[in-house]
């Protein structure tokens, strides 16, 4: 809504000033009156990012981001109902990055937990071996 106005205004500046001014005015009004389509793609992307995060048992690890993600998706839908499509799109995109971050952090924490566990059992194994060898630990 911001960008189209600018573009048309710039293009029009060369010719008849009155006409251009009128056109700008009309377009600006029209822009406020017409409702742009809802950000369907962004909403879907957010939904699938959340699903992905949920399947990865993110709730156990990075629940703050996932909670924010869900809240923003809900807010985005509300914005769509209120015909605030631009805000809806921002919220949907933000919902998606929250969910993606939640997922990435959960994966990181899980990967670390696996490594820590492996390290721990390796340490145990080694100390047992040292013990049974009678070597000082």
């Amino acid at each position, binding site marked *: 809504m*911001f960008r189209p106005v*600018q573009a048309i*205004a710039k293009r029009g500046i060369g010719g008849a*000033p*009155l006409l*251009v*001014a*009128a056109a*700008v*005015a009309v377009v*600006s*009004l029209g822009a406020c009156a017409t409702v742009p389509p809802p950000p369907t793609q962004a909403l879907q992307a957010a939904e699938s990012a959340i699903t992905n995060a949920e399947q990865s048992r993110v709730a156990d690890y990075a629940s703050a981001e996932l909670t924010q993600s869900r809240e923003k998706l809900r807010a985005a839908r509300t914005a769509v109902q209120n015909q605030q499509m631009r*805000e809806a799109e*921002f919220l949907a*995109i*933000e919902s998606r*990055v*929250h969910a*993606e*971050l939640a997922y*990435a*952090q959960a*994966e*990181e924490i899980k*990967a*670390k937990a*696996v*490594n820590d566990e*492996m*390290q721990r*059992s*390796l340490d145990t*194994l*080694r100390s*047992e*071996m040292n013990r*049974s*060898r009678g070597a000082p630990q």
Partner: protein
Amino acid sequence: MNIQIGSASKGILLATGVLLISACATPLMAPEGADTARTKLVALQSEAQLANLAPVEIRDAATAVAAAEEPRKDTAYARHLVLVADHKVDIARARAQSRLYQDQRQALSEQSERARLEARTMEADRARLDARSARADAESARMGADAARQDMLALQRQIDELNARETDHGLVVTLGDLLFATGSAELTGGAGPNLNKLANFLQEYPDRTVLIEGHTDSVGSESSNFLLSQRRADSVKAYLVRQGVSADRLATSGLGQGSPVAGNDTATGRQQNRRVEVVISNVASSARSN
């Protein structure tokens, strides 16, 4: 206000222009928070180990950060872009870190595989040792039991061989008169095998002491019979000593004709009465003491 197109077209144009210009003229700065995203991005990029693991995510984050840094009048949009950029940097770092963990896992699992193998080898070695010692224990226990049984059997066999009788005061081996020439205390050649068996037995069972008793028939004077029986007992003792049996263990007594085992009225009876009896003491431990 735009609807009053009629007269002051110039004025309107001016007004519109001013509106547009003023939009561009407001001094704009990089949105708040964009610098934080940039700092985090630079930090991630400078960690070569991590940066190499998520090049795509980092490029994505860099684009988002650059967009967020653009000064914008639309503060809502600017805030949105900053949030997105900040999250993309965090996502890039988390992905890189996860991949680093995965890389490290490879090394870890190789290490634990090696350690496990080593532990198994040690365990197997130890088990083998344990098994060997358990087997040795069982063996020695069995051998102990066997030995005891063998000892019993050996004793029994030797008792049998010696033709010994078991009596209250011990094993009694009767050496017949065939060992001696008539009227003599000299052992005949035939005495060897019998007495050797006795010597072996006594060497085998060193705790046992022996009483060697000489007996005669009633032929001849009693006193000479006493002497003869004593001499015969002594010759048996001497023989056994020569065979390595300690003299301390060997007592002798000449009992003459006083303890017949058969009637002296027949040749067979007299022959049975001419004898040397070797009484071997019973001891608690019959086994060899090593």
